[in-house]
């Protein structure tokens, strides 16, 4: 697919500036670039789970959203969006709505992997014509950086704090795209901010316009939660991909495709080192933890290669 960076970036923004998200927030970058996947002539109804994004972009009496928007609760963006989509079907059929609408739900990893998981699963299984986008910042950021099932192993969060008896989060993270793909939806993909947003743009557009339920998992770094130097966000994303921690792949109509393979897989330390939440892994005596982390990344990468090679 042809990707004209300048043209895409010059599209009219659908998320207005002036919202209250932190400077350098990955969530906002994810939203703006997903919305660029919408064709300018189409309308959208956006659903948003409670989280940083919602409370900072729609604070009464202001809104940053140029399209119609609904926030319902933390755990139900999937179901809420499915209700909106069903209303569209009903009202369109009865001649009460003329314009074309697309339906996009946004949730943080907490609202997606954890508390909103059932609601999401239901919406995907029923096959509503919608896209669910998780801006995955790897913790409950809005309530102050608590662990989620998307938080990487060993991360220092406020509910898995590093201490004399703790090396951070004990568990590996959950692979949600696999789980959504197991719903046999027409489209599920994972992306982040690399390649001048080409991968992300193509996936967003595909997810939005492919009929049926689609899921997009976007790694969206959080400078406060991850404790890296804020302007380094693009570098962080690149390292996540080059270390194979965050592979770019998609599952379309059941077919797994790896969208990018690093020429030379970088060691996981390269991704972990710039982030304060992993500082303890680089202390003397913790070498074993890095080995374990690497082993898990390798195992999952091999597994993905296998699925994509089938």
């Amino acid at each position, binding site marked *: 697919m042809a990707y004209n960076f300048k043209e895409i970036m010059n599209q009219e923004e659908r998320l207005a500036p002036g919202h209250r998200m932190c400077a350098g927030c990955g969530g906002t970058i994810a939203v703006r670039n997903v919305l660029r996947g919408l064709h300018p002539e189409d*309308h959208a109804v956006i659903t948003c789970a409670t989280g940083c994004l919602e409370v900072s972009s729609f604070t009464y009496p202001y809104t940053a959203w140029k399209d119609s928007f*609904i926030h319902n609760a933390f755990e139900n963006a999937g179901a809420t969006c499915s*209700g909106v989509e069903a*209303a569209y079907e009903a009202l369109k059929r009865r001649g009460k709505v*003329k314009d074309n609408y697309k339906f996009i739900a946004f949730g943080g990893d907490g609202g997606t992997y954890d508390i909103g998981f059932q609601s999401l699963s239901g919406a995907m299984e029923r096959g509503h014509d919608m896209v669910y986008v998780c801006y995955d910042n790897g913790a409950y950021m809005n309530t102050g950086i608590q662990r989620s099932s998307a938080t990487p192993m060993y991360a220092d969060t406020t509910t898995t704090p590093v201490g004399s008896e703790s090396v951070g989060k004990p568990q590996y993270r959950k692979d949600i795209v696999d789980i959504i793909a197991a719903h046999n939806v027409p489209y599920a993909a994972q992306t982040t901010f690399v390649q001048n947003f080409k991968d992300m743009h193509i996936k967003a557009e595909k997810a939005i316009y492919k009929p049926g339920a689609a899921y997009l998992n976007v790694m969206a770094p959080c400078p406060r939660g991850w404790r890296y130097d804020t302007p380094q966000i693009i570098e962080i994303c690149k390292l996540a991909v080059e270390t194979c921690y965050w592979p770019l792949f998609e599952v379309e109509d059941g077919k797994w495709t790896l969208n990018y393979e690093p020429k030379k897989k970088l060691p996981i330390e390269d991704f972990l080192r710039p982030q304060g939440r992993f500082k303890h892994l680089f202390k003397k005596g913790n070498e074993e933890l890095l080995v374990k982390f690497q082993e898990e990344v390798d195992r999952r990468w091999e597994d993905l290669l296998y699925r994509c090679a089938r």
Partner: protein
Amino acid sequence: MAIRERLSGNEAVAIAIRQINPDVMPAFPITPSTEIPQYFSSYIANGKADTVFIPVESEHSAMSAAIGASAAGARTLTATSSCGMALMWELLYVAASNRLPIAMALVNRALSGPININCDHSDVMGARDAGWLQIFAENNQEAYDNFVQAYRIAEHKDVRLPIMICQDGFITSHAVENIELIEDDKVKAFVGEYEPEDYLLKDGEPFHVGPYAVSNYYMEAKRAQAEGMKNAKQVILEVAKEFEAMTGRSYGFFEEYRLEDADYAIVIMGSAAGTAKDAVDKLRAQGIKAGLLKVRVFRPFPAEEIAKALTHVKVLACMDRTESFNNECGPLGAEVKSALFDAGCAPKVINYVYGLGGRDVTVESITSVYEELIKIDETKETGAKYRYLSVRED
């Protein structure tokens, strides 16, 4: 010509829904309301309605999807009971605060535990402060009639609040009774088209629902909801009047049964009122001035009107089909007593908890309540003001 039928309460409500043919219905099965989505799904499957039915994976998602659909501009409803409504809890408040006129066919059932599928009012009473209109039915006819009136009240521009149309699990939901249905075209004309002012799918006008509101706005939002609830009183009466003109069946906030000159009265809601009326008739036949007040509209609570209807009563029993665990009275009792206090009239009031988890309510058991009221009047000894009816105490 009205249509004479024999129907269960669930089927009657399903027929009302078919006649209204709303835009969207998300629902999840739970006894004793399951039949409502079942009947309705079969109507859709056979081309008798073309509502978009969403077979959600939980009641939590039923209410979440209902909120999405209603905000998008669709006339929306769901049906549930007990644990199902409890699972919707958080969203009940969201629906009300977003001023979404969603209708809920609520078939009252006890909340766990122990898990129990039979009738009481613990589900609906727990949600009494959620901001929903709440209307109760004594029998199948009333459940049907109330549902036909529901959207006219909820969608009225001075109200714009969600509405629960309640009936008692099994007692009316499953029992088959004679019923008079209204013709389809008359129901359609009575309910009319839904024309919301602002909604997500309004062509050319983006709309935003569910903001974060800090302390300088939140309270005004609640105040506005309260205003809708206040306005609902007038609207409920207006709609009832029109309904009476169409059917000859009259409805108000409550029904007074042989109450006018009653010395001894009970306040009661739902199906047990029918049994209680029999008890009243029997006592009247013995020359005892017994009467009753059956509450139809619990939200908004018609406090002044209820107090006025009860001023002359000597001893009163408030019958609650739920526990409130305040060691004092149930929610109905609390509201009635507060209404009486404000009106400056003070009959002696005894509070009863009855019929929990489907415990049988009989003419005899209700008669025993009146007997106790008479005894209080005669002995001038009130005794325990909070009592359980038909319970094993050992």
